């Protein structure tokens, strides 16, 4: 109430200044007049009475000022005055203003761009109802010390045991060959529980979720499709509901259409079918862990409570199924963690780096302001002499700097919008939730807030210094003001800039070396000249195991006949595509009590030519051959890692390795280890690899194997020539087969480096920007000091100093700043680059304190520093002693 009144009164006196002023005038006049009259009644003459009243009560003008300045509106008025004055000052110094605003725009722009990425990816809530209650639930394998997917049986048991969730849903990855309506196409999809969408709290655009009856074995074939597919195949018509689409040769009824843009996780899926309808073999096998679980916490249940409850439930399941489940717990993580993943640490790192760039920009502008305020010393002295308090002068200067920074911020916002588009155009694929990145209201607030904060940051120090004017000397004619202090401060700023730049350069340098090492790393196979793709086999071929075997034989024969093809093979995974087929195993007859406690290997189901096609070297024994068929004894090839770990110092050839549910395999060969994950980075588990023949796989697994099988083709010819030929061969084998996910192995390897490449590109650009700003900083300080010291240089030259000496003197001055910065910077870098290590395994083949990197970035900095000193040093050399001395 009283706040409102105060606002209203204040506004009234701001906008009806005259009237309010008049009222106060009148009232005060009355007041003083009454006091005078009273004195006159006591017989004092009017003149003396007036004087006495002025002394006792204060003069009219001073009182008016006191009363007026006691209000908030007077502050507003003063700010407005300061602002108008600041605009005039900047317009008079438009060159200075332009440089400062541009510098700030670069700094603020880069920060705004990165913040909008952080905001969109990390801060913005997930696009589901009450996303904070959404969690993902995992099995926790104590032996592997890692959360893993679960089996569908586990999910059913969890659901049955009344967990701490309001709703929960299973989902699994699955792709489909859609053959009608329209052209055959391979599409990504999911198997989901009936409760999937309601767990997320997402509405359908059309139709309904699956019913509980549909979400079980034997239910009617139904599907929910994406909005995009609905527009594509049904022209966006509401009559699509109830129509059928043909998926992998099966007619399924469309019962629902999703909202446009709906996605769960990072990749799109076009087709959703009920997970309960999966084949009984898959649904009941507790060793097949291919299901993920999303759940909504009950209101008021905390993450740790839910975790404890789920572990109790899983403990019970373990007890009931000891031979598969013993050694498993449950693990609950916030859903956001799954959807954002590794990007978090990288983005925070980049935000830190770009903050450093802003600091450097601030140091530059502060340095400019210092140089300029030395020239304004007389102005401040006059103001101080006329009665301006120190606070008033500081306020005026800070108003100027905030005006600069806000103008810089506006320009920076435009730069950010432009820069963001550029960044997203090249790097969107490397980021989760990249479609969520916009310059929105919170980004605007951020930019504004940063601008104002930055204005204070770089404005306060110079203002503080300038306001400490000593009136006497600077008012005297020819006074130079207090430049010594300014210069020390400017030098300090340059040292800080160089130190910060070095840290950024070191970070970028380490990432650069990492990528260099990654390119040079031995992958265990030859990635050049290899083409990979997947084939959706004809539905008629996948009805029986024998059919699939024949289809692959025929397909590979046709591909091998294409001129230019040096080899072709198939495998259920190719390196660096993040595919995992994790299989428990044991050697000889050492079966552990529970399958969950068995060690795991990365299982590759291949044809006999895969290993040769990839040029994976044979170390001992033999490769899988054409003679190993469904009718002969089971054979396996293992990699050197598995041999080393489980057959230390012994010959594994002829020994037995057992894969539960599949069989006992005789080891016939040992091959080299392949970098299956990102180059140089190991998954915390499963480094072992083993290979078995696709032609020895039992029928019950064969019929779905094509959705996860890749074809690899070695050919020196270009993809653009080869791919049409391959498509042709695939269609000739069967016209309803699709070719998809075609990529060269080199592309896959390159993509696997994106976690390093993304920060490298950005950190590299920030470091270059920092280098540019720092070199401008050095140039500014040295150049300014040469101007100030012209007189001194003149005397030195008059006394016989050579031009060479003067040149050296100036360069040494600059270099001593640079060296001081280097020492601090290297120390800081040694501490800070450790962050790169602890953050997200960003470094490979290079230590955080790599001396070569630090040495080379230091060299770059010194080089730039010398360049920046060169121009002012030349100017110093040309100082004419006569001219310089005559100034005195």
């Amino acid at each position: 109430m009283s706040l409102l009144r105060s606002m209203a009164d204040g506004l009234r006196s701001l906008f009806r200044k005259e009237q309010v002023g008049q009222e106060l005038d009148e009232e005060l006049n009355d007041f003083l007049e009454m006091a005078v009259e009273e004195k006159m009644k006591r017989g004092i003459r009017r003149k003396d009475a007036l004087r006495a009243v002025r002394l006792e009560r204060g003069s009219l003008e001073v009182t008016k000022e006191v009363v007026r300045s006691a209000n908030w509106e007077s502050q507003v008025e003063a700010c407005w005055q300061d602002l108008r004055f600041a605009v005039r000052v900047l317009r008079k110094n438009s060159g200075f203003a332009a440089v400062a605003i541009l510098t700030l725009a670069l700094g603020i722009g880069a920060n705004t761009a990165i913040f909008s990425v952080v905001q969109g990816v990390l801060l913005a809530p997930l696009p589901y109802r009450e996303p904070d209650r959404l969690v993902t639930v995992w099995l926790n394998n104590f032996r592997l010390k890692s959360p893993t997917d679960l089996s569908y049986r586990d999910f059913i048991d969890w659901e049955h045991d009344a967990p701490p969730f309001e709703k929960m849903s299973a989902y699994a990855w699955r792709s489909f060959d859609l053959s009608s309506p329209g052209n055959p196409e391979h599409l990504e999809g999911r198997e989901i529980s009936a409760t999937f969408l309601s767990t997320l709290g997402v509405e359908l655009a059309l139709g309904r979720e699956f019913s509980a009856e549909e979400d079980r074995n034997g239910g009617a074939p139904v599907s929910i499709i994406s909005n995009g597919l609905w527009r594509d195949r049904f022209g966006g018509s509401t009559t699509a509901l109830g129509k059928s689409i043909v998926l992998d040769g099966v007619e399924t009824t469309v019962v629902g259409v999703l909202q446009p843009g709906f996605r769960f996780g990072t990749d799109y899926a076009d087709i959703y079918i009920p997970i309960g309808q999966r084949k009984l073999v898959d649904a009941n096998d507790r060793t097949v862990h291919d299901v993920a679980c999303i759940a909504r916490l009950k209101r008021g249940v905390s993450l740790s409570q839910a975790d404890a409850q789920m572990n109790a439930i899983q403990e019970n399941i373990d007890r009931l199924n000891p031979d598969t489940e013993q050694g498993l717990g449950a693990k609950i993580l916030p859903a956001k963690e799954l959807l954002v993943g590794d990007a978090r640490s990288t983005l925070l790192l980049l935000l830190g780096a770009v903050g450093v760039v802003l600091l450097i920009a601030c140091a530059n502008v502060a340095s400019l302001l210092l140089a300029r305020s030395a020239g304004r010393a007389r102005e401040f002295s006059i103001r101080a002499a006329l009665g301006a308090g120190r606070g008033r002068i500081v306020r005026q200067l800070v108003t100027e700097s905030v005006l600069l920074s806000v103008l810089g911020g506006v320009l920076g916002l435009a730069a950010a919008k432009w820069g963001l588009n550029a960044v997203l155009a090249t790097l969107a694929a490397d980021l989760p939730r990249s479609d969520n990145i916009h310059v929105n209201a919170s980004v605007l607030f951020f930019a504004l807030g940063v601008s104002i904060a930055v204005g204070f940051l770089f404005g306060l120090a110079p203002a503080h210094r300038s306001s400490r004017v000593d009136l006497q000397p600077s008012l005297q004619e020819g006074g130079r003001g207090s430049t010594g202090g300014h210069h020390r401060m400017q030098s300090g700023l340059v040292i800080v800039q160089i130190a910060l730049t070095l840290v950024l350069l070191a970070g970028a340098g380490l990432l650069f070396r990492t990528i260099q090492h990654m390119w040079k790393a031995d992958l265990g196979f030859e990635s050049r000249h290899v083409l990979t793709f997947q084939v959706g086999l004809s539905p008629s071929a996948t009805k029986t195991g024998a059919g699939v075997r024949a289809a692959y034989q025929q397909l590979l024969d046709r591909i091998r006949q294409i001129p230019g093809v040096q080899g072709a093979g198939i495998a259920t995974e190719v390196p660096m595509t993040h595919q995992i087929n994790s299989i428990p195993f044991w050697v000889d007859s050492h079966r552990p009590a529970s399958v969950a406690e068995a060690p795991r290997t990365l299982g590759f189901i291949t044809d006999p030519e895969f290993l040769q096609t990839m040029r994976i070297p044979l170390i001992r024994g033999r490769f899988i051959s054409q003679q190993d068929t469904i009718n002969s004894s089971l054979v396996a090839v293992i990699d050197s890692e598995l041999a080393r770990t489980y057959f230390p110092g012994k010959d594994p050839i002829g020994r037995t390795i057992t894969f539960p549910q599949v069989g006992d395999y005789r080891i016939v060969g040992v091959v080299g280890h392949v970098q299956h994950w990102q180059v140089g980075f190991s998954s915390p588990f499963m480094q072992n690899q083993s290979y078995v023949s696709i032609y020895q796989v039992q029928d019950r697994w064969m019929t779905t194997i094509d959705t996860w099988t890749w074809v690899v083709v070695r050919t020196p010819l270009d993809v653009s020539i080869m791919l049409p030929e391959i498509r042709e061969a695939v269609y000739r084998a069967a016209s309803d087969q699709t070719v998809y996910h075609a990529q060269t192995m080199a592309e896959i390897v390159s993509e696997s480096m994106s976690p390093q490449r993304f920060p490298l590109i950005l950190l590299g650009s920030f470091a270059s920007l920092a280098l540019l700003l720092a070199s401008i900083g050095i140039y500014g300080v040295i150049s300014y000091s040469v101007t100030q010291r012209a007189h001194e240089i003149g005397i030195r030259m008059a006394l016989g100093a050579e031009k060479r000496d003067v040149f050296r003197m100036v360069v040494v001055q600059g270099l001593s700043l640079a060296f001081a910065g280097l020492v601090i910077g290297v120390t800081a870098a040694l501490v800070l680059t450790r962050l790169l290590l602890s953050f997200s395994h960003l470094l490979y083949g290079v230590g955080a304190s790599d001396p070569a990197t630090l040495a080379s970035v230091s060299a770059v900095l010194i080089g730039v520093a010398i360049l920046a000193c060169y121009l002012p040093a030349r100017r110093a050399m040309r100082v004419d002693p006569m001219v310089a001395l005559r100034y005195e």
Partner: protein
Amino acid sequence: MADKPADLVQGSLYMPILTTLAPEPMHGYGIAVRLEQMRKGVFQLNAGSLFVAFQRLQRAGLIRSEWKATENSRRAKYYVPRDQGRNRLNTETREWGGQAAAIARILEAS
């Protein structure tokens, strides 16, 4: 600063002004004279502090003002306490009384 002997701390003027206004509306000079009488004329009130206090009290909604004719038929701005102002005065007086009594008891006990 030593040459402004009786300059008042802002806060300490509010309650005296409210007390002064409690019986009847008064103009600025009247209030000043009454306050000086209350304080036995030890000091003269500075117009600046007084008028700042008026303004603050007005904005806090404790008093309001109106232009009226004075006893010697001149126009002057009179200050009138609002209900909120009277209530505040009562509470503060009561609290102050309580505190004073408490202090008195402590002093007697020692």
